[in-house]
C-alpha cells in the first residue's frame, strides 16, 4: 500500500509542477469583474454589458495594456453570470473579490442585486460601479460603491417639468410594474413631483401590474376613464410596445411619455409606428450623436449588428471611469487590497469625466451628477435629441 501512496504522491507533484511554469507570469494582470445576468429575467442586459465590456477590452489590448506610473499592465475581464438572483450576485461578488482578486467590479445592473452586492464590495473595500442601478440604497453610506446613471429622484421631476412645459397638461396617469424596483421607484418620484406642481390629486390614475404581465387592458381602461391627459410609462422595452399598442386599441389618443428604460433600440423595433412621436428621458440620444458617442454607436452596431442600448453605453462609461481611475493612480503596488483603496480614492476624485452618456462628477455618495436628455422618437423611428436637462 505504501508504495502506491508514494507513486500517487510523486505523480501528483509532477503533474502540478509541470503546469506551474506558465502561470506565474500572470502576476501583472489587472482583473476587472463583470457581475451581470446572462440568464434569468433580463438576459439581454447581461448580453449588452458583456458586449460593451469586450469592446472595451479590445481597446485596452490594442493599446498593449494600461499604463500606470510608467509600467504597463495587462487587463483581464472576469465575466460571471449572476442569474438575475440576489443570492447569486452576492456569491459572485464574494468570489470575484476573495478568489479572483479583482481590482474593481462593474455591475450588478439591477438594483435588487446591486444593493446586496454593494454591501459585499463595501465590506471588502473593493470599488464597485453599478452602471444601471437607480435605487438610492445601492450607494448610500457605501464609500466604495458608485453608480453610472442618474437617480430616479432626479429623473422624476425632470419629466414632470418637461411635460408641464411642453404640453401644459394638468392631469397625469402613470402605469408601472409594482413588482419591479426601478419602475416603482420612478413612478413614485414622478407622482410626488407632479403633485407638487399641480396639487394633490392631479395624478388621476396610478395603476400597476406585475412583472411578465402582457395584458394591460383593464388598467388602461381605468386610465382612459380617469380623463388623464397623458400617460407616464416608466417601463422596459418588453412592456412598452404592448402597453402602447393596447392603449391605442382601446381608443387612447393622448401622448405617452417614457423614462430612460425606453432607451433600447428594441423599444421602437418592437413597438413600430405606435411609439412614433413619443418623448422619453434618457442618458443619450443615438440618432444625431456626435463625437465619441457616435464612434461608440457605430462601432458597436458594426460589431454586434444592433444599436447599443443604454445598458451597453452605461457599462462602457463605467469601465472607462475605472480605467481613468486606474490611470490616475500614481502607481500600483501589486497588492490588491492597497490598490483597491487607491483606485477608490482616484475614482471619487474624478471631475467632469467625459462619458458617452454625458459628463459626470461623483457626489460624496458615489452618485454621478449628470444631465438627462429628452429624446423624441421621430417618424422614422429614430431617437432624435430634443433637449437637455441638467441638475
Amino acid at each position: 500500500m505504501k508504495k502506491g501512496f508514494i507513486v500517487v504522491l510523486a505523480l501528483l507533484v509532477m503533474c502540478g509542477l509541470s503546469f506551474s511554469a506558465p502561470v506565474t507570469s500572470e502576476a501583472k494582470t489587472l482583473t476587472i469583474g463583470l457581475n451581470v445576468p446572462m440568464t434569468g429575467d433580463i438576459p439581454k442586459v447581461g448580453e449588452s454589458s458583456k458586449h460593451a465590456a469586450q469592446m472595451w477590452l479590445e481597446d485596452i489590448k490594442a493599446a498593449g495594456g494600461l499604463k500606470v506610473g510608467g509600467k504597463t499592465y495587462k487587463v483581464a475581464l472576469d465575466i460571471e453570470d449572476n442569474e438575475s438572483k440576489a443570492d447569486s450576485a452576492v456569491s459572485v461578488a464574494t468570489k470575484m473579490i476573495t478568489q479572483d482578486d479583482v481590482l474593481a467590479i462593474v455591475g450588478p445592473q439591477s438594483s435588487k442585486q446591486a444593493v446586496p452586492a454593494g454591501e459585499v464590495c463595501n465590506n471588502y473595500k473593493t470599488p464597485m460601479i453599478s452602471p444601471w442601478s437607480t435605487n438610492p440604497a445601492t450607494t448610500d453610506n457605501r464609500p466604495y460603491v458608485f453608480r453610472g446613471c442618474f437617480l430616479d429622484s432626479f429623473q422624476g421631476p425632470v419629466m414632470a417639468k418637461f411635460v408641464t412645459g411642453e404640453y401644459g397638461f394638468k392631469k397625469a396617469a402613470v402605469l408601472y410594474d409594482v413588482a419591479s424596483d426601478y419602475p416603482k421607484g420612478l413612478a413614485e418620484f414622478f407622482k410626488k413631483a407632479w403633485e407638487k406642481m399641480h396639487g394633490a390629486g392631479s395624478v388621476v390614475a396610478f395603476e400597476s401590474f406585475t412583472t411578465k404581465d402582457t395584458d394591460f387592458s383593464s388598467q388602461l381602461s381605468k386610465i382612459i376613464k380617469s380623463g388623464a391627459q397623458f400617460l407616464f410609462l416608466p417601463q422596459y422595452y418588453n412592456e412598452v410596445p404592448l402597453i402602447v399598442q393596447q392603449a391605442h386599441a382601446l381608443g387612447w389618443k393622448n401622448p405617452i411619455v417614457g423614462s430612460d428604460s425606453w432607451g433600447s433600440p428594441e423599444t421602437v423595433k418592437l413597438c413600430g409606428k405606435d411609439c412614433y412621436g413619443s418623448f422619453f428621458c434618457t442618458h443619450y440620444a443615438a440618432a444625431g450623436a456626435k463625437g465619441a458617442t457616435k464612434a461608440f454607436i457605430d462601432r458597436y452596431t458594426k460589431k454586434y449588428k444592433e444599436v447599443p442600448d443604454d445598458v451597453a453605453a452605461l457599462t462602457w462609461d463605467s469601465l472607462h471611469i475605472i480605467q481613468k481611475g486606474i490611470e490616475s493612480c500614481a502607481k500600483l503596488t501589486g497588492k490588491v487590497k492597497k490598490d483597491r483603496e487607491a483606485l477608490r480614492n482616484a475614482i471619487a476624485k474624478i471631475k467632469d469625466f467625459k462619458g458617452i452618456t454625458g459628463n459626470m462628477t461623483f457626489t460624496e455618495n458615489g452618485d454621478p451628477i449628470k444631465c438627462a436628455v429628452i429624446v423624441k422618437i421621430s417618424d422614422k423611428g429614430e431617437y432624435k435629441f430634443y433637449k437637455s436637462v441638467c441638475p
Partner: protein
Amino acid sequence: MTYFLQNVINALQWGSFYALIALGYSMVYSIMMLFNFAHGDIFMTGAYIGLGIATGLLAIVSSGVIALPGWLILVLTIIISMFITSLLGVLVERIGYRPLRNAPRASAAITGLMIGIILETGNLALLGAKRFSFPPLIMTKAYNISGVFVTNKKILVVLVSLTLMLALDLFVRKTKWGMAMRAMSYDFVVVPLMGVSIDVIAPMTFAIGSGLAAAGGVLYGVAYPVLDPYMGILIGWKAFVAAILGGRGSIMGAALAGFLLGFIEIFVTMIFPSTLRDLIAFSIVLVILTFRPHGFFGKPYSAKLRL
C-alpha cells in the same frame, strides 16, 4: 356601463389564453393524473414555432412565388405550429413521462419542470437574448361601438379559442378515441386491460394538449406581439391553477375556470387598486377552493391512485 362592457371584452380575451393553456394541463391531469409543468413552456415554444413559420411564409409571399392574404397565412401558421408542437408534446411524453410511469407522480412533475427549463434556456441559447416581435399578419382594426373599443384581433382570439374548445369537446364526447380517453381518466388500472393501450392514449393526450397550447401561443403572438423565452412561466402556472380549479375529469371545467381566472384578474383591477391584483385574485381562488374543494366540476377521488 361602457366601462363595464369594455372590461368584459378585455376579460374574454385574457381568459381565452388561460382557458386554452388550462385545457392542456387539464387533459394530462385528468387522464394520467400528472402535473405537466412543461406545459407553459410548450406554449412558449408553440409561439416561437409560429413566429418562425409566419416569418417564413411572409418571406415566401414577399418573394412573389405565391400570393397569400394575411388571414390565410395566420390560419396556416396556426395549423402548422399546432402540428409541430404536437410532435414536441409527444417527445416530451416520451422523454419525460413514459420512463416514469411507475414512479411517484411528483417525480414526473419534476421532470416536466426540468424539461420546461430546458426549453426556456435552449431557446435563449439558440436565439439569443433579444426579444422577437410577432409579424403583424392582420392589421389591427379598432371598432368603437358607443364607447366600447373592440379590435378585430380580440374577436379573432376569442372566436378561434372557442372553436378549438368546441372541437375538443366534440372529439372527447363523440369519437372512439375520445371515449378511450374518458375511460382512461375513469380508471387508470382496469382500462388498459380492456385493450386500450396507455402507450397510445398518453402521447395522444400530450399531442392534443400541446397543439392547443401552440394555437394559444400563436394567438398570443398576434395579440401581444413581443415574445421572450420566459413568457410561458407565469401564464403557465396561473393556467395550472385554473386547470385544477376546474376539477379533475372535467375538460370543459378547465376552460370555464380559465375564463373565470381571466375575469377575476381583470375585474379585481377594475374595482380595487391594481397593485393588489395578485393578492386579491389569488385570495378569491383560495376562498373558492375552501368551499368547493373539488373544483367546479370535479368529483371526489383518491389522489393515491398512482402512487
